[in-house]
């Protein structure tokens, strides 16, 4: 009797421990599971993996990818998108990424000779990997890689006496992230509309969906354009240099006058004063 009871208890414990063991493998919080899983698509590069949104349209993602301009540099510019989206997916606060800053500098320099100074700034732009954006008689605007912005400004300041200096760093991180989110949402909307268009039965439905599809596509283009613009502005900083010619001392053309007083008494004025 005892032996039989002991055997039954042992069997229950064994079953319980087995269940517990299985439970410990599968039971952790969903968040933890997702954090663990997130790196997988990064490592194997599978498109539409863990970082992709889970809704039903997801399986069609790989075939749609080529039609969307995913190669836009702006998407990569601000930071690690996939990590961020993975973190968001896991319900965590996204880790802060580097701010997206647009640097602009306006300098006014006093120089004696404007022409050569303009040429020096233009040469500098080429030396640091930038380019000339605009040039006129007195001012020049160059674009330089953002990472060499400080160096370029410092070197330009050596070209003359700095009369005015205005450096602005505009933080467009927030705007860029908003655009990213809207871009992602609009992609999803467009995909959904395309699917609906395929399933549409009536002409009126097709027309309405196409109209909406056109609107969404237009909005996508606008957002992508803005993102490209911001990316370009952040990648290449803008430096405008205005040269103010330093006036040399005005040397009057010397008037040669003999020290002969009566020479100052010529003319009709004196003669006719009777």
């Amino acid at each position, binding site marked *: 009797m005892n032996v039989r009871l002991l055997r039954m208890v042992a069997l229950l414990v064994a079953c319980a421990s087995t269940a517990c063991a299985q439970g410990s493998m599968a039971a952790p919080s969903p968040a933890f599971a997702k954090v663990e899983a997130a790196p997988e698509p990064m490592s194997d590069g599978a498109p539409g993996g863990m970082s992709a949104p889970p809704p039903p349209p997801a399986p069609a993602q790989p075939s749609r990818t080529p039609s969307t301009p995913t190669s836009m540099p702006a998407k990569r510019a601000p930071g690690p998108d996939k990590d961020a989206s993975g973190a968001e997916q896991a319900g965590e606060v996204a880790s802060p990424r580097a701010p997206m800053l647009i640097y602009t500098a306006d300098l006014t320099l006093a120089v004696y000779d404007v022409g050569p100074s303009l040429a020096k700034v233009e040469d500098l732009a080429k030396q640091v990997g930038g380019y000339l954006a605009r040039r006129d008689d007195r001012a020049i605007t160059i674009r330089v890689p953002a990472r060499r912005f400080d160096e370029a400004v410092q070197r330009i300041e050596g070209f003359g006496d700095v009369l005015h200096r205005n450096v602005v760093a505009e933080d467009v991180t927030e705007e860029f992230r908003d655009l990213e989110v809207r871009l992602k949402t609009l992609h999803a909307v467009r995909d959904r509309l395309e699917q609906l268009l395929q399933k549409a039965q009536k002409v009126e439905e097709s027309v309405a969906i196409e109209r909406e599809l056109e609107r969404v596509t237009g909005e996508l283009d606008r957002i992508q354009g803005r993102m490209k613009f911001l990316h370009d502005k952040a990648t290449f900083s803008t430096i405008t240099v205005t040269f103010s010619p330093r006036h040399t001392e005005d040397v009057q053309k010397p008037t*040669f006058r003999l020290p002969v007083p009566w*020479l100052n008494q*010529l003319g*009709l004025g004196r003669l006719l004063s*009777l």
Partner: protein
Amino acid sequence: MKRTTTALLTTLLLAVGLAGCGRPFLPATPPGFVDLGDRYGKKEYRAATPDGAVIGVRAFENEPKGDLAFWTRVLENRMRETGGYALLEKRAVKAGALEGTLLRFGHDEGKDPHLYHLAVIVDDAHVFLIEAGGPRAQIERFAPQIEWSIRNFRAK
């Protein structure tokens, strides 16, 4: 006898003194002009017509000593600097035995065109200026008289 000698010496000294203080030139007052006397100093002569044409003669020391070309150029430059005078003509003139240069300028006094003639005559001691000016119509009308006055000018 002594009185006579003293009187002669006194007269001579006075004559020399007066000559030294007077004009170093003999002006020639042309017909139509009247001599305005010595009210402009002892080294300046002026004559005028009733209608505004004026002739004037002045004498200055030739210091710094220059020749006719030098002084002509100086006057030409100075009139150019003065502004408002346009050189119309430049030519050589004779004043007795002396050589001179006549510069003719046009000038607008207000709305009325005027003419200004400036003749420079140079000797070792002096620079003589003969000026003639006035409204263009008057100066053109009296041009022969002005030319005559220059020709008959005599340095002492």
